[in-house]
């Protein structure tokens, strides 16, 4: 089955027909429901909170936020999806917005954020001319700023491959988040990946020995299959500080910087950063 992300930009893919099909499928309803419950469990909120739902779609994820007693604001790029959310009387406020353009809220406002099956869309080319890495960093910078200190975000996503997975997690860390990855049912076709992000105790702020990644460890501790992306980890390749010179992520970042400076740069390909065989 081809990935929808590879066929069309999200606002065109989720047209009226597709949005309707998506929302009324009982299979999809039950999957989105269990992933949202999982995200709420990881957020571990102990009082009714103000939550941002990124790529809220027709409100399948949001309705669980409502039934757990929270107030939410959803943003989505598809007008068709939002129209269905209206029809379904979603309790959350809805914003027609592109997360790749940022997160348009005053700093420090939300208690928490969730995103269910949406952020992998940022890795794909879309109708705008802007690079995926530029859109990822605008998104994570905006998300980081819109959360209150001590706030958390849980983002379930479907990376196409290892490259996308790294692209997304490293963009989050670059924006200042403490980050951990949690994989449910690994090695099955139902595997689900959750990026757990925390604000505060970030890279600039060392309180005691609470540094980035530590409170994430608390969150996901004891759960199976957890990979905490700790910048202090020896040889870790995800943290900005530890990025290996010459590694793929390093090359992609340098290329991006040069591109931003207006230099001409070779297009990224799956070969970027691979060791080349010695040529005779």
């Amino acid at each position, binding site marked *: 089955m081809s990935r929808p992300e590879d066929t069309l930009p999200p606002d065109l893919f989720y047209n009226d027909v597709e949005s309707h099909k998506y929302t009324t499928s009982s299979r999809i309803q039950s999957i989105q429901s269990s992933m949202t419950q999982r995200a709420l469990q990881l957020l571990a909120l102990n009082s009714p909170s103000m939550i941002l739902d990124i790529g809220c779609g027709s409100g399948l994820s949001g309705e669980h936020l409502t039934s757990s007693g929270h*107030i939410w604001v959803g943003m989505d790029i598809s007008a068709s999806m939002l129209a269905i959310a209206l029809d379904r009387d979603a309790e959350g406020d809805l914003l027609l917005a592109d997360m790749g353009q*940022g997160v348009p809220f*005053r700093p420090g406002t939300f208690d928490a954020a969730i995103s269910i099956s949406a952020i992998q869309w940022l890795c794909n080319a879309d109708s705008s001319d802007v690079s995926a890495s530029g859109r990822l960093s605008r998104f994570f910078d905006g998300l980081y700023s819109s959360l209150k200190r001590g706030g958390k975000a849980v983002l379930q996503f479907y990376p196409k491959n290892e490259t996308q997975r790294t692209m997304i997690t490293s963009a989050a860390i670059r924006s200042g988040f403490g980050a951990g990855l949690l994989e449910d049912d690994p090695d099955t076709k139902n595997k689900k990946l959750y990026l757990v992000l925390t604000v505060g105790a970030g890279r600039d702020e060392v309180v005691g020995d609470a540094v980035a990644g530590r409170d994430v460890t608390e969150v996901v501790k004891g759960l199976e299959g957890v990979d905490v992306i700790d910048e202090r980890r020896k040889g870790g390749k995800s943290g900005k500080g530890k990025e290996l010179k010459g590694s793929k992520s390093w090359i992609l970042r340098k290329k991006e910087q040069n591109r931003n400076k207006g230099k001409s740069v070779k297009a990224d390909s799956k070969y970027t950063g691979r060791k080349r065989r010695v040529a005779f």
Partner: protein
Amino acid sequence: MKILTTNYISCAVKACKSTSLSFPLHFQDAVLVQEEVDFKPEFITNILPRIEWEALKITAVELGFTTLPAQKPEATEEAPLDPQVLKDLHTLLLETQVTEGKLVCANCKHVYNIHQGIANFLLPNHLALPLIMITNF
């Protein structure tokens, strides 16, 4: 769109991020409805510290509510907030909603339309991005 949300939203235009003029956005031609929302005093207590009271006063006046206290009600150890105050805040912040109208940025004058309660925050790329990223293309 709930009044609470308008106290959270700011102009999405890149150039407006660094100026205080871009918050709050200002209402024009707003159509209001009252919609019942479950009252949870803990929710109001939880978010109150993060409400920008001065901005809320501006918004309230624009929408025709003139009875907001001049100072943000604050709970203390000895004196928790009066339940009636929490209820009033609940009514204003969560139950009062804008279904049609415009939100306008005082800095860049960009107009965000609200239709059926949904605000349109999609921007043309030249407004959303720092200049350096556009000149490449």
